[in-house]
């Protein structure tokens, strides 16, 4: 299975290596670095590379490459999924996943990696289990540790790992028992030049933050579960009950976790909350062009659209731009040719507009294609699909928990072709 792991920063420096079987020389990474050189963007590096003696499977995440070395046949997704879990674990323990953070907590990262795999086979990947074995750093604990010499490595055998509920710790205690659920929906859409929808779908996720004492058994039901077309669950959810009754019944992990992700029925028409009027044109003669973009609310269900942001990758031949925005501000990076217009809240009375001139490099031909616009937006207190949580019931514990549900709609991969 997984032989070794290397963490590599964008400049190609290996700053962490871990071997679970016999040691593999660093030079194996040269094949990877070569591929990295060839790729224009770090995202373009092929995830699976075949070298004479090894197979390299890598992910690029949070500006870091996680590169694993494989020697024999293994499902590639098995490795990719695991590498993402490593990244998530670092994020979970230290708040962010970056080179500095890993370097700051090198020893702990080693200890964690040691627990996560045995002989290349995943051993403990549940965050709740890991946290019981190796406690995450807190300021208080590091002070206590230096004073008393105690460590943050647990020495008891985890009930979690042995039980049929490996995701939950035993003996959880809170003074305030609370359970929060965030229903986050993302609209993936491609709109064409005229504003017609080429493709649109809604992907949703229910994020939970459950801080309940003991061993609560929760049941979450929806008003309109038929909306949900395709779902995937955290292992805690009882699949059979979903099949028969369309309710989510589960004993939750402690803390934050993703309860389910879903896809809304394709038959339902997707409400597109904004429209974009744009014209980008380049004049045939002379090296000049114009850009004019207006964003306005469309089907917003009476809510305000916030955090609107338009991102454009301008053609490489653009020399400079001169634009004015009626609302918000724009930034332009001449190196990457990235134009970002941060609008903020949409005001239906006064539509934000960005217009001005673009100048091309002298002698450069008129660009073939106009750049497409990527839209970002956020609508609070609305699930665009209309999904509603009906109720949350708790069994097995006596206290009354505080319960809360929040809805957010965001733009996912929302693209306007021009």
């Amino acid at each position, binding site marked *: 299975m997984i032989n070794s792991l290397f963490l590599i920063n964008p400049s190609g420096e290996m700053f*962490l*290596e871990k071997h679970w*079987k*016999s040691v593999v020389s660093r030079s194996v990474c040269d094949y990877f670095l070569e591929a990295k050189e060839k790729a224009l*963007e770090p*995202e373009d590096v*092929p*995830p*699976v590379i075949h070298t004479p003696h090894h197979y390299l*499977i890598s992910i*690029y995440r949070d500006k870091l490459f996680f590169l694993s070395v494989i*020697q024999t*046949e293994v*499902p590639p*997704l098995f490795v*990719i*999924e695991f*590498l993402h879990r490593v990244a998530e674990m670092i994020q979970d323990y230290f708040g962010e996943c970056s080179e500095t953070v890993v*370097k*700051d907590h*090198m*020893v702990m990262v*080693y*200890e964690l990696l*040691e627990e996560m795999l*045995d*002989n290349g*086979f995943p*051993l403990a990947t549940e965050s709740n289990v890991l946290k019981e074995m190796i406690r995450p750093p807190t300021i208080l604990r*590091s002070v206590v540790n230096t004073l008393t*010499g105690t*460590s943050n490595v647990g020495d008891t*055998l985890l009930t979690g*790992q*042995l039980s*049929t*509920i490996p995701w939950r710790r*035993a003996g959880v205690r809170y003074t305030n028992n609370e359970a929060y659920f965030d229903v986050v929906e993302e609209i*993936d859409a*491609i709109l*064409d030049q005229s504003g017609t929808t080429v*493709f649109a779908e809604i992907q949703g996720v229910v994020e939970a933050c459950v801080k309940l004492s003991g*061993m609560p058994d929760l049941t979450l039901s929806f008003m309109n579960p038929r909306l949900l*077309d395709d*779902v*995937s*669950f955290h*292992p805690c959810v*009882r*699949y*059979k009950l979903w099949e*028969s009754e369309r309710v989510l019944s589960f004993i939750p992990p402690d803390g934050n976790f993703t309860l389910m992700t879903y896809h809304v029925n394709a038959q339902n028409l997707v409400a597109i909350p904004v429209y974009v009027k744009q014209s980008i044109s380049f004049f045939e003669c002379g090296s000049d062009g114009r850009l004019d973009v207006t964003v306005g609310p469309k089907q917003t269900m009476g809510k305000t659209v916030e955090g609107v942001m338009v991102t454009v*990758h301008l053609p490489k031949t653009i020399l400079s731009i001169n634009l004015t925005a009626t609302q918000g501000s724009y930034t332009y990076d001449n190196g990457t040719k990235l134009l970002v217009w941060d609008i903020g809240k949409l005001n239906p009375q006064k539509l934000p507009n960005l217009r001005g001139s673009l100048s091309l490099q002298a002698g450069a031909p008129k*660009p*073939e*294609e106009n750049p497409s616009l990527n839209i970002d937006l956020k609508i609070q207190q609305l699930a665009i699909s209309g999904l509603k949580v009906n109720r949350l019931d708790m*069994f*097995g514990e006596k206290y009354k928990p505080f319960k809360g549900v929040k809805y957010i709609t965001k733009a996912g991969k929302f*693209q306007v*072709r021009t």
Partner: protein
Amino acid sequence: MSTNNLSYNDQGGSDSAVEVGQETTPTSSNAGAGFGLFSTNFKKNDDLKEMLESNKDSLKLDAMKRIILIATGKNASELFPAVVKNVASKNIELKKLVYVYLVRYAEEQQDLALLSISTFQRALKDPNQLIRASALRVLSSIRVPIIVPIMMLAIKEAASDMSPYVRKTSAHAIQKLYSLDPDQKEHLIEVIDKLLKDKSTLVAGSVVMAFEEVCPDRIDLIHKNYRKLCNLLVDVEEWGQVVIITMLTRYARTQFTSPWKEDGLFDENSETAFYESDEKKTKNGDEKKSYMMDPDHRLLLRNTKPLLQSRNTAVVVSVAQLYWHLAPKHEVGVITKSLVRLLRSHREVQYVVLQNIATMSIQRKGMFEPYMKSFYVRSTDATHIKSLKLEILTSLANEANISTILREFQTYVKSQDKQFAAGTIQAIGRCATNISEVTDTCLQGLVLLLSNRDETVVAESVVVIKKLLQTQPTQHSDIIKHMAKLFDNIAVPMARASILWLMGEYCERVPQIAPDVLRKMAKSFTSEEDIVKLQTVNLAAKLYLTNSKQTKLLTQYILNLGKYDQNYDIRDRTRFIRQLIVPNEKSGALGKYARRILLAPKPAPVLESTYKDRDRYQLGTLSHTINTKASGYLELSDWPAVAPDQSVRNVEVIEPVMIHLYFYYPEAESDEEKSSSQSSEESDKSSSQSEKSSSESDSEQKKTTKKPPQKKTVKPTAKDRYYNELFNTKCLSRSLFSLCILTPCPLSCAAALLQVSGPAFVPEKRHDLLHRMTGKGLSAQYQFPRQPCLYQPTMVSVQISLTNTTDHPLEQIHIGDRGPTGLDMHCFNTVDSSIRLPDGAATKEDQFSVSIQPAVGELFLPATMTEQDFRKEQGKLLGMNESSATITMAAENTTRQPISRQVATVANLGVVPSGQDNIHRFAGKTASSGAVVLVTVELRESSAALITINTEKSVMGPMLLRDLKRALTRA
């Protein structure tokens, strides 16, 4: 240690101590404090040694942390001797760090590594399962050939350990030992065989992994465990699921007959093949008239399906490939949605999933066509994702959707990513050849692209047009003319060569233009690329044969240029062509056929997907991704023509058919059922139940194929479904049936020092709670599984199993009023509210009051302590708290093993290691209050024994004493 080092440390010792105190995480970002550490890195190794040898754990710990950091970059093996001494440290974190280091460097320092072995051997006997497991883990990771026998022994022992966690570790160790010494294979297979029989979900994934690595060809080991693995699958951790599913896919392909023949019969009428194979196996030919899926095959498909909803993408894809390779064609559709869902996941996941979809979509367009739009390319996609999506869209194209796809392609052609645009043009070409309706439209579109400003786009268009024209050249002489006009403006060699080839091939259609092109080429011949030169020579030869009047001189000129070219390919080709076409005395018989050779009608190239041949690899594998056979790849065999013996998978203990009968004929078979279920272990409970359910739905099939005489009556299908549901609900959450009972008592701190360990022994005895006669068909039994209670550590788990012995469903079973005061019960709400019956069974309400009377021994939790601790505790619990009795032991109970077993049967206590042979000690604490319970059995002469019980619970003491007395005197 040399004096040199000492003197250094005299100078620097105090400094370093201060430094260590200041920084817990020495890093470069910690500039001020980190400075000292990094500038003097090499000298510091000496003070590291010093620190490792100090008495303070904190100093050692800091030293180890720094060593681990050094080991990331440089070789830190010179510290090995100093580090290895700390392997027996009490501090867990220090110990773990030493393990990390040891495993990393043991291979280089084999002799020194041997020093640590005895520590691990000791730890393997530790009462704490965590310590046993980690000792085995590290011991097996040390890659030193000398210790192979020790490892082998340790693995064998661990494989029969009581703790499933240790057994899991031993499964991992098998692979490590195998890679260290493949000669041990035979012994290891024995261990694998043993572990495969294990019923713990914890072990299943790891042992299958070991199986795959050590002996993937020993498929016979799986037979007996097949059903168990299928049933456990849902509860196995996600990584194990992937491995098990992959293995079962391979297994199923060797054991079951193809479910695809059935489909073949319907849609392709492949009857000849069908009957041919039939004749070969005459002995059961009549049975094969219509395909009947093996119930075990069905079981696998049914039990893997829920996993399509897993959050782990690897699990989803492994189920998808299982369905692809094993399910009847009409059932494969269920995987589509889940695969499309994965496209929302990380980029790398998309890459692998798209590859698999690409292979699938070539064979089965219909599967993904409804989701076509999910494969639309976004400008933000990575290059490899874009080309995969293009690939899939092309495969999905058909008459109905081609216009939509072409419109989409038009957008892509304009993309700034020129490589992608070129890929799109090729895709258009493929669509045009596959779907004849749109060939003309595509061709027109491609011709328009010839005036594109970008060179790569134009070049790619030329190449694709060339291929398209080859398929139907008759109508398109105007396109060839158009391309000839463009020829001057095109610089990309491949495109130029393609145009030249077209001219030559169809020179008779453009008699005016072709010689002119040749004239231009003659002028620029020397400055062209090799590939263009070759085509020029070809063009010249073809023109010479068809139109020698105009081109004779030009051809000779070009052949002369070619003769002296720097490239030998071109020189060879020129020489060959000259001999072939120019008649002279030396040219042999071949000259006559020159025309036929050069102007032979050529078959049109087939434009097909690069994923065409990938289906020879199992989907979802590494080999499939890289399109070459990865080392260790296991071929998926073809379906056997005749199914191998099905009965090999039958397991004696739980015979599903028998249990099935039990539900329907309670009078006839009930005794048999009882005995079989009692002998089966409790941990297997849920799995055996789902096995029952599995046999239910397949009963129809079994009836006809396997045991016709036993089952004459046809059961209503509604009933079948009901049992199915009932037991599915049961296996859904096995804890549904466990209650927890708590006697309220304040938690005392006295036992805080005691560590609770796993149960030493779980008695299988079940007690009747409700007899089926009293319960009007509902019978209930309870037992104490001695597992830690999940709800509250102070509770004791009771497992209740309910059985419906009637032939009608029982609904809404729930536990009514709580018991007597002082008893706290944690129970579940309605057991199976999900069951609905279509035939409107009579509703009746019944209430039975029952009582559970736990033996006093079940109220304890086993504890581990040393003999000294035991004595100390015992000293505190004398007088009032002590009760003792002298008994005469039964003859066979006089050695350690039987005594431990008898005591463990009565009470859930842990064994305390004892120095004396005649004294046996057991310790535990009460679950509710944590009060210490100590039991001493002291053997006297002539099978007399003194039992002493020390506990502050003055009621429990005598009760336990009475139970123990009974157990130990009983023969």
